[in-house]
């Protein structure tokens, strides 16, 4: 293979088109100037990616580029259309309407439209809602106010709605109910979206993510209702709302719950089959119903920002007999000053400590009284512990770190094979 030979000659056209699919369409058009082989190759590229930033944020030039390249594009079916408009444009709505209509005409499979957040959302044409070829739909800061009842997303498997505005509480459930094959749903609420309670009823849903955008919300009585019996992965992050009730999820594998609800019994209570759990709650008593056992829980990560996090930890350790990995970390700024209450150690030694716990990690350790108690307790009683990694807060002084290390290494260790790493 001499150095003068075309290095890409061995790759078939289809493959080159695959490579081009990863590129923004602006760069794809550059390739039309490469050689005879490449001259019209770009017209068949299956995915078109447009980003306003690549055109110096000048909207007229951008829209002209999109118009012309869409016109010249010849592929019979559009695999994907990505449009990202990051700054405010007054005429964007009309243009986006035309582009979406074009995509629907070309049997688009994946549509990803993002309009800059914080601005008045732009409305989508109705033809989108009856697009039967659509499999992936991702919308950001758009308005679905015009969706009427005949929406039909029968092929949609992935639906991401970020900062989308609806007509009322019923819009979203209606859209979701038409997505008979929906497997992946992400809903990010924003203030002013006309929704109080987000209801998700999806029989095939496998992954669900619910959260709120970083803007400030009014009121604290909004919530989520979820009925997705086949769900495997759940992510909820809500620093504003009031509740989240979910129906039982027997197949759930991984859950990430980071909420400020006063009562999460109807949430955690349905996640009893979970294997991996990341938790940050403000309550410990009302975290889950008494008597619940997380019989499959193997990996637990707990945030230590809540006022009485150690009580929640105690409950969880007692109720997770198969726990193998325990990780503690302060994810948020402490919500309230730590009360003076003492930590009530578990009455009987939890099963997981006796039989299963192998890894114990603590990040941003401060060496406070409670933290010390918990750490020494675990080190003492976790007989099968193999690794314990305790990382102090980076802002601690060398002296403080030295103290922590001294205390930890001198505490009795139940497991003879345990390796304590202080880093």
């Amino acid at each position, binding site marked *: *293979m001499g*150095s*003068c*030979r*075309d*290095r*890409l000659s*061995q*790759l*078939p056209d289809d*493959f080159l088109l*695959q*490579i*081009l*699919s*990863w*590129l*923004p369409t*602006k*760069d794809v*058009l*550059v*390739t*039309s*100037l*490469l*050689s*005879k*082989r*490449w*001259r019209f190759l770009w017209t068949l590229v299956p995915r078109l990616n447009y980003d306003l930033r690549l*055109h110096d944020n000048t909207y007229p*030039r951008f829209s*002209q*580029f999109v118009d*012309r*390249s869409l016109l*010249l594009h010849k592929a019979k079916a559009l695999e994907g259309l990505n449009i990202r408009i990051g700054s405010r444009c007054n005429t964007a709505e009309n243009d986006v309407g035309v582009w979406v209509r074009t995509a629907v005409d070309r049997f688009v499979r994946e549509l990803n439209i993002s309009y800059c957040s914080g601005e008045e959302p732009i409305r989508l044409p109705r033809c989108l809602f009856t697009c039967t070829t659509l499999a992936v739909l991702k919308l950001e800061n758009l308005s679905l106010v015009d969706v009427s009842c005949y929406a039909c997303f029968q092929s949609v498997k992935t639906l991401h709605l970020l900062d989308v505005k609806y007509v009322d509480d019923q819009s979203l459930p209606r859209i979701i109910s038409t997505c008979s094959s929906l497997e992946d749903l992400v809903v990010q609420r924003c203030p002013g979206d006309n929704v109080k309670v987000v209801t998700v009823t999806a029989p095939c849903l496998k992954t669900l993510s619910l959260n709120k955008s970083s803007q400030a919300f009014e009121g604290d009585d909004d919530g989520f209702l979820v009925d997705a019996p086949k769900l495997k992965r759940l992510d909820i992050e809500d620093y504003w709302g009031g509740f989240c009730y979910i129906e039982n999820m027997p197949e759930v594998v991984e859950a990430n719950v980071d909420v400020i609800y006063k009562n999460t019994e109807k949430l955690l209570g349905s996640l009893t089959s979970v294997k991996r759990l990341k938790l940050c709650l403000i309550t410990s008593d009302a975290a889950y119903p008494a008597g619940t056992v997380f019989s499959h829980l193997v990996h637990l990560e707990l945030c230590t920002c809540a006022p009485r996090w150690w009580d929640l930890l105690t409950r969880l350790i007692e109720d997770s007999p198969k726990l193998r990995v325990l990780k503690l970390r302060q994810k948020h700024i402490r919500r309230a000053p730590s009360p003076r209450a003492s930590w009530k150690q578990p009455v009987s030694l939890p099963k997981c400590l006796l039989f299963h716990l192998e890894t114990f990690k603590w990040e941003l350790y401060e060496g406070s009284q409670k933290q010390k108690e918990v750490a020494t307790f675990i080190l003492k009683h976790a007989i099968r512990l193999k690794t314990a990694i305790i990382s102090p807060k980076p802002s601690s002084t060398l002296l403080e770190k030295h103290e922590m290390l001294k205390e930890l290494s001198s505490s009795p260790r139940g497991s003879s094979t345990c390796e304590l790493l202080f880093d």
Partner: protein
Amino acid sequence: MSEGEMAIIKPEMMKSYIWLETADGSIQQVEQEVAMYCPMICQEVLQKGVGSSKNYAISLPQRVNPAMLSLIFDYCRFHHVPGRSNKERKIYDEKFIRMDTKRLCELTSAADSLQLKPLVDLTSRALARIIEGKTPEEIREIFHLPDDLTEEEKLEPLKNTMDDPRIRLLNRLYAKKRKELKEREKLKSVEVEEHVDERSVDDLLSFINGRDHKVVKTSKSKKKNKKRKEQKNGTSMGICETSEKDLKHNLHSKSRNAENVDKTASSLGDVSNLLSMEDDIFTPKTEFEDGYIDDEIDPALKEMLDREVEDFARRLNSSWVLSIGQERQPVHFSINGNGATRRLTGPAAGHK
């Protein structure tokens, strides 16, 4: 499995190997579980039963050479182990993909022919990253692509020349030109002399442009940087680029107004006269243009642009000239150049 059991390795549990033959005839062996990570090989083994010994080695597609094969197996060896975290795999992939472009292309080709999807995705993304943001020259250089496009093919509108300042300059010039022509047309009284059919105006246009080609050459040999000449050339080019219809109309009125115009069929060379007339019509306008243009573009850039505009015109015009068919009757005008100029600068001067 407790640790005790794992310590004893039974002989029957020793690894079995798959034999593979590359297109050049060399045979390699690789652990079975590593080879099975590749679906194509897996299929060959399961469906056809080959690969178990040296004599029945699986023959691989032509695009896979031995060096790439061992690279691919390194990849499979790492990834077929189920216990690795996504982060570990990502880190490995990023290190793995760091190689010179030539090898990357070979690897991509091999992965594609073996249909190893994760590696195909990894390599195609890497190649896309290389292409991203580069000019055609740079990309051609990196991949040793042949530079076999003709000049005119390279200059086709749309593409990245949409952002080109030259195009914008031309469009601006043309727009002004059109406006001025329309105004002049209104002032003159137009008498319909003879019906000029569309086709002949077409030819007119193309020959004007063809002539322009020559005009450019001559002007180049004179002082190239004279603004006027350049504006003129730019203008003519603007005409070539945009709506023919308007042009035809303007030229039509122009031709009627020039009294010395007659249509004679002759060789290409005589077109020159018409062009000079046309050029002279536009020359007086340049003073207006100067005012507008100078405000927007700085002089150094403008000079460079002017030169490029000339170049561009020449290329475009050559393609126009080439597209003229044999059957068309070329229409030519013989004019007393001076006379025309004098006549036309009169009213034109009124616009100043």
